[in-house]
């Protein structure tokens, strides 16, 4: 069981949702009125657009996340062979961590980690 089971789990997951949604879209009773499909906004008609420019803070965090996530991917192979590489590998990874730490410190001092 390896690659084919991934497809299996994908299909079974989709099946679970699909059957229930199909059942739910035909069996339950339906009614319709103009207000029913309005977006919810405290019971009053909606004001303005929904899809507009958003706070840049989220974007900043996703950029920093990207850097650190790639770095985590680099660390996984090292962690697995850590015992074989020994002290030499450890010193190399300390240098890697140092560069990372400087990067984090830079982002910190620049105020990228501050929510505004």
């Amino acid at each position, binding site marked *: 069981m390896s690659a*084919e089971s991934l497809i299996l789990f994908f299909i079974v997951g989709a099946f*679970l*949702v699909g059957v229930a949604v199909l059942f*739910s879209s035909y069996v*339950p009773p339906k009614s319709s009125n103009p207000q029913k499909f309005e*977006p919810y*906004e405290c019971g009053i008609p909606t004001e303005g657009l929904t899809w507009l420019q958003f706070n840049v803070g989220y974007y900043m965090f996703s950029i920093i996340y990207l850097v650190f996530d790639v770095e985590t991917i680099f660390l*996984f192979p090292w962690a697995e062979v850590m015992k074989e590489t*020994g002290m030499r590998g450890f010193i190399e990874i300390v240098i890697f961590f140092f560069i990372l730490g400087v990067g984090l410190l830079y982002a910190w001092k620049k105020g990228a*980690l501050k929510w505004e």
Partner: protein
Amino acid sequence: MGYSRYDFTPLLHSIDQWLYSVMSPAWALIVELTLIGLAFLIFYALVGLFLVYAERKVCGFIQNRVGPNRVGKYGIFQTIADFIKLLMKELIGTKDADKLLYNIAPYIVIICSFMAIGAIPFAQGLLAIDFDIGILYIISVSSLSVIGVLLAGWSSNSKYPLIGAMRSGAQIISYELSVGLSLLTIIVLAGTMQFSKIVMAQENGWFIFKGHIPAIIAFILYVIASTAETNRGPFDLAEAESELTAGYHTEYSGIKFAFFYLAEYMNMFIVASIAATVFLGGWMPLHIPAWNGFNVVMDYIPPVIWYFMKTAFVIYIIMLFKWTFPRLRIDHLLTLEWKYLLPINLVNILFMALIVLLGWHF
């Protein structure tokens, strides 16, 4: 060892042999896959229903009330009744929603949690997918569900879901790092990412005891980060009722809403299972070196029960968090991750590597 009397490998192997002997290989494979799929489907539904019930009971216990107690004895059929009611509700969406993405979102969250559950080792020989990169696989698949959450919020064309989804996205990707790094601490100690090997390596002591100080720190960090990653309280900003009604699934109704709810609980189950497997030994009974009598007695308890006890323990901790602490503000939330958990994690990994190199672990 004594625990191997509960090994599932011979049983599953003989079923496999029998299927291949009575029908052609192609049909045998199809029947096998159907059986596995069906078993996981039932398991998934049962765990989901049970967790919703357990959450309400724990909540009731903490708030000094009874919780559900009307439907069936002790209210055990409450969630089944809720499920049937949700199934019989009309599906309504918003007027100008992005229909395609709006309909796809529940599929994504459910499929992601369903694919992750296949890699969890329940007992010896009882796991569907045994990759040699098991931990990496389960982290990556379960973190894909953030796409579903973002799609749900964005495509609803409503303001509360959009804000909820954005918060949820920022939170999930931030805490993803801490989850990965705290598991990395244990991979350094274990030297493998395969779940079956990780469990076998804990035969003479669970990793939380073997790696003593850094492992305990990593366990605490993991529990905090995974609570945040599954959008549960006190980190449930994405669905802060008082300000955002229901967050990213405000505009979903009926069974689609139920699927988001189910996925949240299943994600909690998955992170608790990973914590139980990686830190607390998975299905491995509690063994103390040189206490042979004790070890033999512990081996009589089936591994499946060990596994579920440990998972239930972690789930209970996560539930206690939700009903004990007040909700965080978003800047506090991001500060906690980037200025505390992440640096502590980085130092902790080096600390653990040093301990492994110097042989100070047990």
